[in-house]
């Protein structure tokens, strides 16, 4: 950290200028017809064979998920090697995130089973957070290798897997804590009149399955809508062919970009805390 402070300002200015020059020399894309469905088809980057119904080719979301895992693993290993008693910089950030996940998410919502379920909840939080944030960095994965935004969690397949993980862990936690029959019995509200009892039971089953839909679609639609609005605003700044409107809309796009960073944090937090609520709800004793 102190090394960065000693670098004079003109070196930073030169760095930014060089980056802008390189950016202007980057290859451009050009499209004649704009077909929206083509924007969402995934082209395999490394074509691998199909085993049964599963296609193992490496596509853009796969590479982004690998990058997420690589970043998390590298940062974790580096921080655990350089841990000091009086922490500086990176260790403070990681400790803040850990404390947020432990006290803020798992500790504030779950009554029992915090220590056994915190690994999943913390991992879900960190994974969704880093995957959302990587989606806001332009990387050269566009066609013709242009710089483009893409969020791994903006793909329904990824978020359905995360929601299914929460669902499976919820059922496992309930069955492990209460036994199979006891867990199913915990869905019945004992002090309700008989007809309502069956209705509440059926509605609870439906709501358990609807949680998969709601968790996945919330994360997916937030990331997708965010990137779509960002694309529209950045394009509108060029569309009107007027310098004034271009500057104003560019400023608005930057504010929207900052809002997208905030939404990335919030969606990761909400995914983790709802998973904690569901798992804690399956573990708790009295209804």
């Amino acid at each position, binding site marked *: 950290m102190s090394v960065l402070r000693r670098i004079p300002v003109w070196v930073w200015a030169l760095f930014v200028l060089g980056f802008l020059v390189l950016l202007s020399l980057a290859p451009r894309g050009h499209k004649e*017809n704009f077909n*929206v*469905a083509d924007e969402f088809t995934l082209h395999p980057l490394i074509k691998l064979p199909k085993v049964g119904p599963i296609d193992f080719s490496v596509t853009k979301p796969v590479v982004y998920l690998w990058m997420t895992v690589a970043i998390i693993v590298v940062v974790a290993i580096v921080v655990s090697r350089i841990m000091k008693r009086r922490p500086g910089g990176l260790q403070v950030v990681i400790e803040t995130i850990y404390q947020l996940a432990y006290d*803020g998410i798992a500790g*504030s919502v779950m009554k029992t089973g915090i220590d056994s379920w915190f690994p999943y909840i913390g991992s879900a939080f960190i994974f969704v957070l880093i995957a959302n944030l990587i989606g806001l960095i332009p990387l050269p994965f566009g066609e013709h290798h242009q710089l483009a935004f893409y969020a791994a969690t903006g793909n329904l397949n990824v978020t359905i897997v995360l929601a299914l993980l929460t669902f499976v862990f919820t059922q496992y936690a309930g069955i492990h804590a209460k036994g199979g029959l006891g867990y199913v019995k915990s869905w019945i509200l004992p002090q309700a009149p008989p007809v309502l009892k069956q209705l509440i039971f059926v509605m609870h089953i439906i709501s358990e399955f609807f949680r998969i839909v*709601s968790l996945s*679609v*919330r994360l997916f*639609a*937030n990331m997708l*809508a965010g990137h779509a609005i960002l694309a529209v605003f950045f394009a509108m700044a060029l569309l009107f062919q007027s310098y004034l409107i271009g500057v104003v809309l560019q400023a608005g796009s930057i504010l929207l970009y900052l809002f997208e960073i905030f939404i990335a944090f*919030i*969606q990761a*937090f*909400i995914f983790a*805390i*709802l998973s904690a*609520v569901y798992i804690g709800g399956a573990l708790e004793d009295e209804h």
Partner: protein
Amino acid sequence: MNVAAIVIAAAEPTLAQAARLLGAGLAIGLGVIGPGVGLGIMIGSALQSIARQPELSGDIRTNMFIGIGIIEALALYAFVVSLILLFVVK
């Protein structure tokens, strides 16, 4: 010539196509009224409770964000339905 034929066919709206676009617009338009009102009520009451007891503002803020996430998901369901109507249904 092929491109011109496709463009003309796309510009000529059939009843089904017009209904589809109308449905997409109505889905997102009417769909965000409820979550908008709900978010206003929830954040308003969160602000009131923070004003009453400022020492609980951290807890209240945490629960407010959970509530925001759940309510905004409803608006996003409407958005997803409108996207399906626009881009998936022929």
